[in-house]
């Protein structure tokens, strides 16, 4: 009975797997094996994270194949044959084996801990004098990126004395919730320079996440965060809020445009030159009126 059931289960499994595969192949529009590994890192810190990811992945895969292999071997090799009613040897345990399979995992996880801690020190390293500082304001449900000149804190951009000195990029929600004609707000950063983000939330917890930087940091109200990164690949990268922040959480997307220093400075100059450039749209109506950053519109 056990045997026929097994055969039956195997047959059903094969049929279902083939069916699933057929559905998958016929519907495949945007999947590629590229999705099976993290994005190519676009920052120095992201590359460090990617390296530790790869190490963990290799060890994890090895453990997976070892243990699944043992399970599969055991259930095939030690299945009860029909008519076999003899008791197998009643083995209660083996202390040497217990010590081995306690000690080896301890060694593995300690090694992973040390490696990941070292990587963490790279990822979280800070320089006291980053060449670029950007204020990032998160609110329900959009972003603002505030570029203040040297010597001015982004929070002070709204003050009359700083009028015309700051550049603020405002995000807007897509009209009618339709993403097709919508561009999320874009944060411009120069390549190969350390950029410091000063993260601030005006309402609930948000999270600043750029998959290509392999990094995210929560933005908790009253707990402003400072992060630094060095983008090392020119391009436009997707970013999104990952901390659920209410009704339109899904629309808290943004982009990071990594460009050459020349292009970056040119963009900043263009934004500073009156009349305001088209990207400086008025703040989203859902933005909290009177928030420090919202009042810094040029």
């Amino acid at each position, binding site marked *: 009975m*056990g045997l026929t*059931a097994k055969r*039956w289960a195997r047959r*059903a*499994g094969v049929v*279902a797997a083939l069916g*699933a595969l057929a559905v998958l192949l016929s519907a495949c529009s*945007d*999947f590629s094996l590229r*999705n*099976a*590994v*993290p994005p190519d890192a676009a920052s120095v810190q992201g590359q460090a*994270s990617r390296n*530790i*990811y790869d190490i*963990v992945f290799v060890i994890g895969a090895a453990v*997976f194949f070892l*243990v699944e292999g043992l*399970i599969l071997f*055991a259930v095939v090799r030690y*299945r009860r*044959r029909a008519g*076999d009613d003899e*008791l*197998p040897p*009643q*083995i*209660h*345990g*083996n202390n040497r*084996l*217990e010590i081995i399979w*306690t000690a080896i995992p301890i060694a593995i*996880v*300690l090694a*992973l*801990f040390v490696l*990941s801690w070292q*990587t*963490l020190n790279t*990822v979280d390293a800070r320089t006291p004098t980053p060449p670029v500082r950007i204020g990032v304001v998160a609110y329900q449900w959009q972003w603002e990126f505030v570029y203040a000149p040297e010597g001015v804190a982004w929070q002070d951009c709204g003050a009359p004395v700083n009028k015309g000195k700051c550049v603020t990029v405002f995000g807007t929600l897509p009209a009618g919730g339709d*993403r097709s004609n919508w561009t999320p707000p874009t944060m411009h950063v120069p390549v190969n320079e350390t950029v410091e983000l000063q993260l601030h939330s005006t*309402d*609930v*917890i948000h999270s600043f996440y750029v*998959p290509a930087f*392999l*990094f*995210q940091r929560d933005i*908790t*109200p009253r707990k402003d*965060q400072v992060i630094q990164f060095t983008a090392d690949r020119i391009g436009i990268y997707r970013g*999104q809020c990952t901390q*659920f922040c*209410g*009704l*339109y*959480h*899904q629309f808290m997307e943004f982009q990071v445009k990594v460009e050459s220093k020349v292009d970056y400075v040119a963009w900043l100059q263009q934004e500073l030159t009156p009349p305001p450039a088209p990207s400086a749209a008025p703040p989203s109506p859902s933005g909290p009126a009177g928030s420090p950053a919202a009042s810094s519109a040029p």
Partner: protein
Amino acid sequence: MATTALRPAATYRTGLYEWLTTTDHKKIGILYTFNSLILFLVGGIFALAVRTELAQPGLQFMTEATYNQMFTMHASVMIFWVVIPFLAGFGNYLVPLMIGAPDMAFPRINALSFWLLPLSAVIALMGFPLGGAAAEGWTSYSPLAQAKFSTGPGTDLWIVALTLVGTSSILGAINFLVTIFKMRAPGMTLFRMPVFVWTTMVTSVLVLMGTPVLTSALIMLYIDRNLGGSFFNTALAGGNAILWENVFWFYSHPAVYIMILPAMGIVSEVIPTFSRKPLFGYKAFVFATAGIGALGFSVWAHHMFTTGSVYLPFFSLMTFLIAVPTGVKMFNWVATLFRGKIRFTTAMLFAVGFLSLFLIGGINGAFLAAVPVDYQVHATYFIVAHIHYVLFGGSIMGIFAGLYYWWPKMFGRKLNEGLGKIHFVGIFIGMNLTFFPMHLLGISGMPRRIADYSATAGWNDLNLLATIGGFTIAAAMLPFLWNIFVTLRGGEPAGDDPWEGNTLEWATSSPPPPYNFDHLPPIRSERPVFDQRHANDAPALTAGH
């Protein structure tokens, strides 16, 4: 061999009144089981709503407001009203039987623990007709959960309901601990207790230490929302959003062990029985369980690595270390299979399914212990994949194994094995189709809890695949429900000991009489029923303990 001379069923079912007022741990256990099963279907419908909406980019079926309620209530129902009570139900039914006791220590408190559950579930679900259920995610982070951002009654109902669930859990934990420490039969020393009883004991300690923290935090959140408190409300002086995360996870991380340890206990009963061997390394297993319980309270802040408010090395190290006792258990299970004579009943299939799927949930958990990797995949679909390999691949597979294994004891009739195998195959395939693609969605950057996504993000195929998997799971539940229906109407009679079990519940009739045992076999090892069955065998077979 067993005490079938008793009249087993004559006074067993005496109508609705008896079921509503019973203090019999077995009936309460069955009530837990059916209540959890019904809410499993409710939570499953919420999950299907989420998967249906995500099948394609664009909002086709619901608004963001509805979607946010769906994923919030899916997680809340599955955690608080399905997995935890399902396992508590097994504990209720089995612990007194397994230790040779006539009932739980406090039968009326036991009934109260149960009846708080359907009551609280109704309260939480009442949000839907009253203008919207809770929609902040089951983590209910503040300040999003504050009155300013979450208007409407749903959140308050959710808080009240969870406070009742917390009370139920605390009462249940006290009951289990007193029962286990004070009511074991003569000869049932601690190290002769079935592993399931050990896991229930450690779970109860976790509940007793963790649940009051969450319950207090919920009351504080209620005060914030309704009475102007400022515990977690950052709009007021002194309000601290991180404080909520700390107290919430101080319970809710151990809650993961509350949801997995008893399932490990179930699997540790099923695998030895159907391998016809004792559990390999019984004591190592007990120490590993205790180790998980102890370490379980030192890892909560790994849910908060990305807050910038956590001492990272400590929590990273502890999170890596907690993988070790879990690994020890995995090797002990596999060693139990080795040189056994394995019978592939449905219960055993689910138990082996538990091993192969929970393994993945353990390995992808190790990714998250590495802080830089967590920075990358935290709050993405990778987390959703991880928790479902633990709670579905682990807890739910264990629960199904337990249902097929102990159903004959509960009702005197076996669930149909053919339907059971269809159920298993469908669940196993559907589970992997649903949750494996979520790893890939996560590492390519799809955040969790979004109602919709850009069509150009590269997530269309994987989401469609996950949705197909979700409906496969739903379809696989149909033969299971049909199986319950036909078995309750007249399935194959089971007899007292249909599987050649090891532990005391197989020494009484199926179903057992109200007082459980007419007489007990001598208890000289952790397998008294095995010892009795093989008392006259050659000594070489049973020696060794």
